[in-house]
Each structure stands twice: as structure tokens, then as C-alpha cells.
């Protein structure tokens, strides 16, 4: 066990029945980096996140998770993964606190400070003991983020994390992700909101029809550069 510092994707391909979602993608993700995974809808970004999260088994190829040079597998990998998906991954009938308590239990996190975490993501104090069914889109997104961060993951996977947030919220989340990255976490973010990740993403990968068509590491891509790269390669 230990915090992941290298994730090596090796020729990962995935088919869903007759549909090809990924056609042999190889790349490496490193600690303290934020990879912006870009591409049109249906390019295979969500599937790649699924494979990274271990919930989609590749048809061929594999992913190696490493911590300090050692391979990590199975439940130990899952413990290190934080996920923010399209949906909240939280139970609508339970309150924010109950949801987080449940997941703290499942992840065996003993010292979880749920209130501090909810403060950090900015969920209104009065809402915390209300069923999350009653939350606005933005509040749900905050709860989902709290859930993803609860376990202090070393591999954070985010699928369109900025949708449902207003401009200010999106930029604040971008800033938080920058801090998380600085703490050594591998951050992978799928998004169309290039503004929110500008200045923080230092690794860009573009998928087109299941293939990796562009990959580059740099330091802190600006909004203009990201936009330029996206338009040159995604189409």
C-alpha cells in the first residue's frame, strides 16, 4: 500500500459489444501533475476514466499502478482512487453527513473530519443534515467533490467537474484542484471548461475516436494554448 505516484496505461483498448470505445491508448500519469483529458463527446474520455477507475475492464492492454516503484493491485488501488463523475455517487435519501459517514466506513477512514471537509467544499451548514435530494445542482456537485476528497486519494479522476457550477464556483474548484495536485496527487480531469483548468494543467492528452492523437507535457498551460491545442487536434 501507499500513495500512487505513477499510473502507466499500456495499449488499453475497449469494445462495448460492437462499439469501439478505446483503440490502444498508451500514456503515463505521474504524481503532482494534472492531466487534461480532452476530446469530443464519444471520443472515449469517459471510458478511459472508467478503465482508470478499475470499473471497466479493458478488452486488451492493461494499466499498472505503482507506488514507490512497487505495483499496487486490487482493493489497494481502489482505496487510492477518488472519483467525481457525471452523477454525484451519493444517495439522494441520505443527508450529506450520512453519505460521507457511509463512505468513510466503506473506505475505513477513521479520522475523517466531515464538517471541516464540507466547510472546505463550501456546502451550506444548514443543508448538511437534509436529504441530499433537496440540494441544488451546485450543492450536489460540492457534496460529490467532498465524497471524492474524503479518502485523500492519490489518483483523482474528474469527469466534467465544472458543470453545474457558476463561473466563480468553477474557478474556485479549479484552484482547489491545483492545491490537491501540489500535494502530490495525480489529477486527471475530463472537461470542456478550459478556462477553469488554465494555469494548472501541466499535461494535455487528446482523444479522437478512441485513439490518443496528441500528448504533451509542459508547465501550466494557459487558456489560449489549451484552446489552440484542442482546436488543432480534436477535430
Amino acid at each position, binding site marked *: 500500500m501507499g500513495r500512487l505516484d505513477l499510473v502507466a496505461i499500456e495499449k488499453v483498448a475497449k469494445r*462495448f*459489444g*460492437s*462499439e*469501439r470505445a478505446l*483503440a490502444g491508448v498508451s500514456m503515463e500519469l505521474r504524481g503532482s501533475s494534472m492531466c487534461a483529458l480532452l476530446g469530443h463527446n464519444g471520443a472515449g474520455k469517459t471510458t478511459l476514466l472508467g478503465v482508470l477507475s478499475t470499473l471497466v*475492464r479493458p*478488452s486488451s492492454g492493461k494499466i499498472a499502478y505503482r507506488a514507490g516503484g512497487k505495483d499496487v493491485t486490487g482493493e489497494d488501488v481502489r482505496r487510492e482512487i477518488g472519483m467525481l463523475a457525471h452523477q454525484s455517487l451519493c444517495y439522494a435519501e441520505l443527508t450529506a453527513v450520512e453519505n460521507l459517514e457511509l463512505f468513510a466506513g466503506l473506505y475505513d477512514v477513521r479520522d475523517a473530519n466531515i464538517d471541516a471537509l464540507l466547510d472546505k467544499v463550501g456546502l451550506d451548514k444548514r443543508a448538511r443534515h437534509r436529504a441530499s435530494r433537496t440540494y441544488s445542482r451546485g450543492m450536489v456537485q460540492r457534496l460529490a467533490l467532498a465524497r471524492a476528497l474524503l479518502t485523500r486519494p492519490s489518483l483523482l479522476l474528474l469527469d466534467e467537474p465544472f458543470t453545474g457550477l457558476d463561473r466563480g464556483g468553477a474557478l474556485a474548484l479549479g484552484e482547489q484542484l491545483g492545491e490537491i495536485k501540489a500535494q502530490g496527487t495525480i489529477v486527471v480531469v475530463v472537461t470542456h471548461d478550459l478556462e477553469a483548468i488554465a494555469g494548472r494543467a501541466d499535461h494535455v492528452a487528446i482523444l479522437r*475516436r478512441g*485513439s490518443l492523437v496528441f500528448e504533451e507535457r509542459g508547465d501550466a498551460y494557459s487558456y489560449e494554448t489549451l484552446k489552440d491545442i484542442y482546436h488543432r487536434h480534436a477535430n
Partner: protein
Amino acid sequence: MKKLAVPVFSVLGAIGFVVSIYLIFMKTGLEYGVDERTGRLAGSSLFFNQKIFYFHVAQAIVLFTAVFVAGISSILFLWKRRPAFDDVASASTEVAVAFGAAVLVTGSIWAKAAWDVWWNWEPRLTMSLLLWLILVGYVLVRRFAGPSADRVAAGMAIFGMVGVPFIYTMVGADSHPPSGVNGVVLTLGKRLLPAFLASMFTFFAWFIALVLTRIQSTRDEREVRELREQGLDLGVLE
């Protein structure tokens, strides 16, 4: 070698068909029973209809085999995740659905002749029906479960296979009228055996030929899709 398999099994099936028809109609007798009133041997209620037995039982055994072929290849598919195993499972199930329909129809004809009802829940026929329903369910899942159809269907095939001993015990524990088939199997003397084996041979050859054809067509479909994807990748196709 592989290319030859389908024609070879088809030809074997065709020869087997001619031979089994010959044996059934020329070399086996008619069904007689002891008349209760006169105490003499007379044509039973089955008489000529008994001849359907040879095809009926052979088809039923194919149906039974297909459940296990599908179950075992589905285990291999879930384990190895190689589409080849899934192809075998789905092809044999589809073909077995057709064979199963034949089992039910011939069984029904038998029941009409033997007991004067089209369906009387005779244990073995009931078992064929239940297995057939599992296979039909499998085909429906395949057709309507979208991209994850292979997984769901594999699960159904495996659970279906494990259910076979339970279905068998269940129908066996029922105290129904003694089955006509039982009597025939017991009297399946040397004279009847060749006809029975010939029809077994015929139906298995057909089954294998059809399954191989079905597997090939699935593979071809996949290959066409892959070629199309390559074409799209290279920008040759739109």
C-alpha cells in the same frame, strides 16, 4: 481445414438423414402393445407414430448438450473475456432454440398419439420446455440488452446450466403417469438401436454445422466493423 468443417458436417448430416430415415421406416417395426381385453398383441395407440421418437430424443439430447456448451463457454468468456468463447455460447444457444422448438413439437405429437392430449406435462418434455425457456431468455437478452448483452447473457447461461440438476430433480420428483419414452428406451433392443444412433449422428452433425456457420457469420460481422473503423481512422471512409 477450418473452411472444410461446415461442408463436411453438412454432408455428414445429409447422409445421416437419408440413412436414419431408411432405418427408421424400413428396419424398425411398428409399436405394439398387449391388448387388455383380448390379451393378444395389437397395434398400440402409438403404432406408427412411435417413429417420431428417434428424431425427438436426438433433438432433445442436442438441446440438453447446448445448455452445457453455452454454460461452459460462458464461464470461459467471463474468465478470459475473449469474444471467441462468447461466439460459441451465443451460436449454440441460437441453434438450440430451433432444435428445442422441434423437440416441443415432436413431443407434442407423441403426447397426442400416446395419451390423446397435445401436452400432458410429461417430466422429460417439461424439462425440455424449461431448458428451452432459459435459452429463449438468453436470445432475448442478447437481442435487447445493448452493449453489455454479452455479460448479462453469459450470466444467464451459467445460472441456467447450474439450474439443470434442480430442474431434473424437480420434474423427476413429480408422480406423473409413467412416461411412454421410458418404455421405449427399455425395449430399445438391437433392432432399434441403429436407427436411434443414426438420428443422433444426423442431428449432432447438423447442430455442429449450423453452430460453426453462425460463429463464422458473427466473426465476419466483427471483421467488417473493424475494417470500417480502420477505414475511418485512415480517413478513407467517411
